Each structure stands twice: as structure tokens, then as C-alpha cells.
């Protein structure tokens, strides 16, 4: 490899690696009932919420982290983590952009997150979660006109307790798994979306998450409910500053689609991946699940995962309603010493339900990439259909790709297809591109982007471009 630039680039390649110095209000590390009471009190939560948290905490104490993933995770000391960090701001919270700490706004600008009204022209409303507290939610009024609720979940607990009580924890039960249960006990904030009947959400909804404070876990919780005949497209983007320590991120996302409703949920995840030797980086242990409750409902997950030291994540769909549709489109890149164990679960319960899984795993440097997917067809799911395509691309010879497909079919009329390929980036392809005048890195980025095309085209247009760029940045210096 001829490029001197590589060393330089390797040092600057995580462009979101800056730390914001603002006064933080942080709880000391540790977790017990008192901490949970304090979180709940700080958020001024109604009694039902505190009880719910305490119930989850009691369950969590009896649980163990899952051992089955193909991941090498250093033991996590849950008592060494601080469970609440909020940027200090006026008692009442910011009422407008002017009241938001300029340094926070500066952080958003560095991330390219537009809180400004210009972004409205692009049709994006942003609910920005800075560490734990939602700083500002834009375009709420515009959305309110359509009857759409898009607010921090902490606010929804107060303003829409009936919806929270009706849906929270109904898709991902508290005791679902160790990390989800921890989240249920300590979740700090996140987004809540409700789309009323027969309403098409007038704009793409978007949330950017960012972990800033040192040694704080981020436990956001998102709940999206699409009522009958409604449609919403939601995008989350994630970045975190460079730190030497690992940081835990254990989020829960629940989606509920009622009759004829459709939810499209897209993620571009670029948490700090750690350095080449595996030092630092985010532990991204996330539970995402959607329930297609009504007939002809549809939930579609699209994820582009390029960041995090370790990713443990299976956005899933429970296909309960007859004729409901579940989709999962995924690109997961592991470079440096990153590890990913990711995939999906498609649980077919209703008749004539169908699901599609397209997974593209890319491993470079010392990255380890596993696809883990479950397709389950229950005895009630007549004429269920699934198509799974699972491709792995290897760059270099120190990385690994693994596939763990689980298929459980209890109904004779089901049609389940699974295709899988593993390939290396070919010398022929590289030579061809370079002979045409492209540099080696550009050629690799081009070929990898081609490999991911099927997934990228599921992303909203402006984010597809972003994902493609992200892929290029993440691959810089990964081969050679």
C-alpha cells in the first residue's frame, strides 16, 4: 500500500469524535431502587411509570446477559455506570432554539443536524436526543395540524399517559431480554410517535441520538404507534464521540402497526467503533421489534450499521394480522476490531403473511460479522411466505463472516426460501476499476456500495446518499 495518507486518515477518520464541554447533571455511578426513584423523580413522572420501572428492575436483577451471540464481550460492571446525565438548562427547559445551550447547537451543527427551519424544506422534523434529555423537538406544530404526535417519550408520559399505558412494553415485554429489561428500568428518554387513523405523516420523522457524557449509558426508548390506515417513515441516525472507554447503549424500540397501517423505520448507525486495537467504542445492545397487529399492516426495517465496537441487534417483526408484511434490509460493516451479531426475526402468526430479509454483511480488517436470523411460521399462519437473502463480503484475510439462520416451520403451506453467499472482493474487479483510472480505495468503495445497493435503495433518498458516504469513510484504510 503506497499511501502515506492512510496513517493520517486512520487518525482523522472518525469525524464525529469530538467532546462537548457543557455542564452536566450526572448521577453518581451505580444502580439500585433509589437510583430508579431518582430518575423517575427528576423526570417528574406519574406513579404508574415509577411502578413500571421498579417492576422491570426487580426482574432484571434475576436475569443474565445472553451468552449465545458470536461476540467477545468484556464483562460489564453495571454498578460502574451512571444512569442519568442531563445537560443543565433553565428549569423549565428550552422554549425555543435561542434558549438552547449554544454549545449543544454547535455539536449538532458539527454533526450536520439541522435544527434550523431550512431543514423543514427538506421535509424532515428532528427530535434530537442529547444524551438523555430531548433538547428540542422541531415542527411539532406542523405535525400537530395533521394530528401527529411526535415528542420526547418523557413528555408523552405526561401528555398522553393513556397511549403510553396502552402500548409501552407490549411489543418488547420488560423481561424479554437482559438489556431490554435494564432499559425498562432506567430508560431516560427517546421518541414517541402516534399517527392517527387514516393519516399519512406529512414529513419524514427523524431523530439523532448522540452519547456525550463519559461513563454514561444511553438508554433511550422509542415507541411508534401507527393507527389504522396510517403511514409514517422514521429515521434515526447515531454518532458518539471518541472515548477510550467502552460505553453501553441499550435501547428499546417498539413499533405497533394497526389495520392497514405502514411503518418504515430506517437507521444509520455510526457510533464510535473503537480504534484499530479494539480500544474504546460503543456497545450497542439494542432491542427493536415491531408488531403488525392489524390485517394488511406492514413494517419495514432498514438499517445501515457501520459503527459501534459491538453490535447486538435484531430488528424483528411479529406478523400477527392476516396479510401483514414484514421487511428487513440490512447493511452491517465491521472493520477495525468491530464485532456485529445482527439479523432479524420474522414471526408469522397470521394467514397469508409475508416477509423479506435482505442482509449484506461486510467484514474488513479484523472485523467479525455474524448474521443471525429466525423465520418462524406458526401453525396458524397458512400460506406464509418468506424470502431471505444473506450475502457476506470479505475484504482482506483477517476478518470473518458467519451466518446463523434458524427456520422453524409448523405449517405445511408455508414457502420459505433462503439464499446465502460469501465472497471476497475480487482482484479482477479491482484491477478493472483501477485500469479505468480509479484509485484503489475509490474502487473498493464503489464495489462495496454496489454490493449494498439493494439495501441503500430502501432508504429515504437523502439518507441513501449519506449512507453511501459513510460507507466510504468507514472503509478508508480498511484494506491494504
Amino acid at each position: 500500500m503506497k499511501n502515506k495518507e492512510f496513517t493520517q486518515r486512520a487518525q482523522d477518520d472518525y469525524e464525529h469524535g469530538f467532546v462537548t464541554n457543557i455542564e452536566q447533571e450526572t448521577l453518581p455511578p451505580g444502580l439500585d431502587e433509589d437510583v430508579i426513584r431518582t430518575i423517575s423523580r427528576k423526570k417528574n413522572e406519574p406513579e404508574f411509570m415509577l411502578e413500571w420501572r421498579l417492576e422491570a428492575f426487580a426482574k432484571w436483577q434475576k436475569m443474565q446477559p445472553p451468552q449465545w451471540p458470536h461476540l467477545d464481550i468484556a464483562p460489564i460492571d453495571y454498578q460502574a455506570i451512571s444512569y442519568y446525565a442531563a445537560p443543565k438548562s433553565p428549569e423549565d427547559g428550552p422554549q425555543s432554539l435561542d434558549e438552547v445551550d449554544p454549545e449543544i447547537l454547535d455539536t449538532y451543527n458539527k454533526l450536520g443536524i439541522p435544527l434550523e427551519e431550512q431543514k423543514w424544506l427538506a421535509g424532515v422534523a428532528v427530535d434530537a436526543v442529547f444524551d438523555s434529555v430531548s433538547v428540542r423537538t422541531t415542527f411539532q406544530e406542523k405535525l400537530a395540524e395533521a394530528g401527529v404526535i411526535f415528542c420526547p417519550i418523557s413528555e408523552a408520559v405526561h401528555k398522553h399517559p393513556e397511549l403510553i399505558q396502552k402500548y409501552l412494553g407490549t411489543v418488547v415485554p420488560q423481561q424479554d431480554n437482559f438489556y431490554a429489561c435494564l432499559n425498562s428500568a432506567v430508560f431516560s428518554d427517546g421518541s414517541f410517535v402516534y399517527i392517527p387513523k387514516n393519516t399519512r405523516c406529512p414529513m419524514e420523522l427523524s431523530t439523532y441520538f448522540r452519547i456525550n457524557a463519559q461513563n454514561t449509558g444511553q438508554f433511550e426508548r422509542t415507541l411508534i404507534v401507527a393507527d389504522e390506515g396510517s403511514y409514517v417513515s422514521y429515521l434515526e441516525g447515531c454518532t458518539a464521540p471518541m472515548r477510550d472507554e467502552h460505553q453501553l447503549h441499550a435501547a428499546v424500540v417498539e413499533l405497533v402497526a394497526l389495520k392497514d397501517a405502514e411503518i418504515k423505520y430506517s437507521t444509520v448507525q455510526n457510533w464510535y467503533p473503537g480504534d484499530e486495537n479494539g480500544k474504546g467504542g460503543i456497545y450497542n445492545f439494542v432491542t427493536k421489534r415491531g408488531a403488525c397487529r392489524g390485517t394488511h399492516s406492514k413494517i419495514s426495517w432498514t438499517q445501515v450499521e457501520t459503527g459501534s465496537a459491538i453490535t447486538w441487534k435484531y430488528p424483528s417483526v411479529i406478523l400477527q394480522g392476516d396479510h401483514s408484511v414484514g421487511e428487513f434490509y440490512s447493511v452491517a460493516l465491521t472493520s477495525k476490531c468491530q464485532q456485529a451479531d445482527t439479523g432479524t426475526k420474522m414471526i408469522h402468526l397470521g394467514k397469508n403473511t409475508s416477509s423479506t430479509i435482505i442482509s449484506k454483511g461486510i467484514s474488513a480488517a479484523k472485523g467479525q460479522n455474524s448474521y443471525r436470523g429466525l423465520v418462524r411460521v406458526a401453525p396458524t399462519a397458512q400460506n406464509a411466505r418468506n424470502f431471505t437473502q444473506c450475502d457476506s463480503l470479505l475484504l482482506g484475510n483477517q476478518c470473518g463472516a458467519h451466518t446463523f439462520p434458524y427456520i422453524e416451520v409448523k405449517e405445511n403451506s408455508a414457502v420459505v426460501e433462503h439464499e446465502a453467499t460469501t465472497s471476497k472482493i475480487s482482484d479482477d474487479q479491482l484491477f478493472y476499476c483501477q485500469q479505468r483510472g480509479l484509485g484503489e480505495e475509490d474502487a473498493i468503495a464503489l464495489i462495496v456500495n454496489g454490493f449494498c445497493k439493494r439495501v441503500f435503495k430502501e432508504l429515504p433518498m437523502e439518507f441513501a446518499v449519506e449512507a453511501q458516504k459513510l460507507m466510504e469513510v468507514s472503509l478508508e484504510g480498511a484494506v491494504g
Partner: protein
Amino acid sequence: MLTINNLHVTVADKPILKGLNLEVKPGEVHAIMGPNGAGKSTLGNALAGREGYEITDGEVLFNGGSILDLSIEERAQSGLFLAFQYPVEIPGVNNAYFLRAALNARLKAKGLEEVDAMQFMQLIKEKMKLVGMDKRFLSRELNHGFSGGEKKRNEVLQMLLFEPAVAILDETDSGLDIDALQMVSKGVNHLRSPERGFVVITHYQRLLNYIVPDFVHVLSDGKIIHSGDKTLALELEEKGYGWLTEGAAG
């Protein structure tokens, strides 16, 4: 403009080219013919700088300087073009996107301004007409699912777009029907000019009816053993290579 002196190339430790000499001056078309295994394709790959083609001796001068220390893309950017015998398929990569990215990489290397999407479309449409390609080509994936003839046309299209100083055509005629052959030849002839050189590697005299060479060379066992004008190709068609290779051996 392209001078090859005493070129020795080994592939996987096996000597393939064993002292090849060739001088291509601006405006000239050189045809290289020869039996299978003579080293014809090795020549193209070695000149383009492909990994695994080790140059053990000799020199290659291009526009006055040695190219042997240049990377693959630097050679390409300096105007050396190789039309592949078997163009590779790259799934998911849009043909137009690829062509523009490559064109812009070349322009950038020359310190010239890159072309935007509009300028590119104008440019490429004009070139596509020459090789009888319709614009649906542009939205397809690079060589993916292309027929043999379509792949070769795509090679010639790229050559027309990049306007290289020297183009090496590696058996561009193989697998082509007569219509495609004519179309490909038309593209090449369009680009013939007093400033540009061509090296046409082929098995068959047929191509040389359309692309009429100034010189014909016979490559055998890693060396050029005989050179002549266009009539040599006809002679080879008639008599085969035996009379030359035996002579060389004797």
C-alpha cells in the same frame, strides 16, 4: 510514444514474455497475432500493471518516461487503456455512475475540472451513438448480465470516452458476431488519429479487415519473431504459424 525494450515477464514464477521489443509511434496501429500461449494477453496485463505479472527485465517507456514504477491507476490516468478480453461484472454499480467516476478520476489527475451529471450525459450520449448503444445501457449495472457483445461494446465506449493515448485491445473480437464486430471496429476507427497509437491483439485476421493495421507482428514463445505489414495477416491466415515458429526454432 510506447517503447517496449527487452521485456521479460513471469507469472507465478513461470517466464511468459522473454525479451519482447515493440515501438508504437503516434498514429500507428500494431496488430499482434500468434498461437495460443504465446503471451499475448500477458503483454496487455503487464503493461497495465496488474498484480502477479512480474517484470524481471527490460523497460517500458510511455510518453518518454518509464511506467514500471507507476500504479495501475496512474498508468491509466496517463493515457494507457486496456480493453479487456473478459470485462468483469460488478453487480449493483450503475454503469453511468461508474463511467463518470472513472472519467472524473482521470480529469482530476490531470488537474482538469470534473464534469457534472448534465455535461456527462451529453458527452456519453454522443459516444454511445458511435457504437450503437441505447441509453438503457447507462442505467444497467456495470457489465452485469451483459451479453458478450454488449460487454465488448461497453469497452469500446469507455475507450471513446477516455480518449487514451495508447489503447491495447485484448482479443476484443473474440465471441463477436459480424454486426458487433463492425460496430466495435467503427468505434476504434473513429478514434484513430495521428496522435494516438493502438495495439490490437487478436487471433483472427478477420478483425484486421475492419481495423487495418500498419504493422503486424507474430508473437511466439514470449518474443516477437516476425513483423510485416497488413499482408502478413493474410499470409498467416493462409499458412498458419508453423512456418515461422519452426524457422525460429531452427
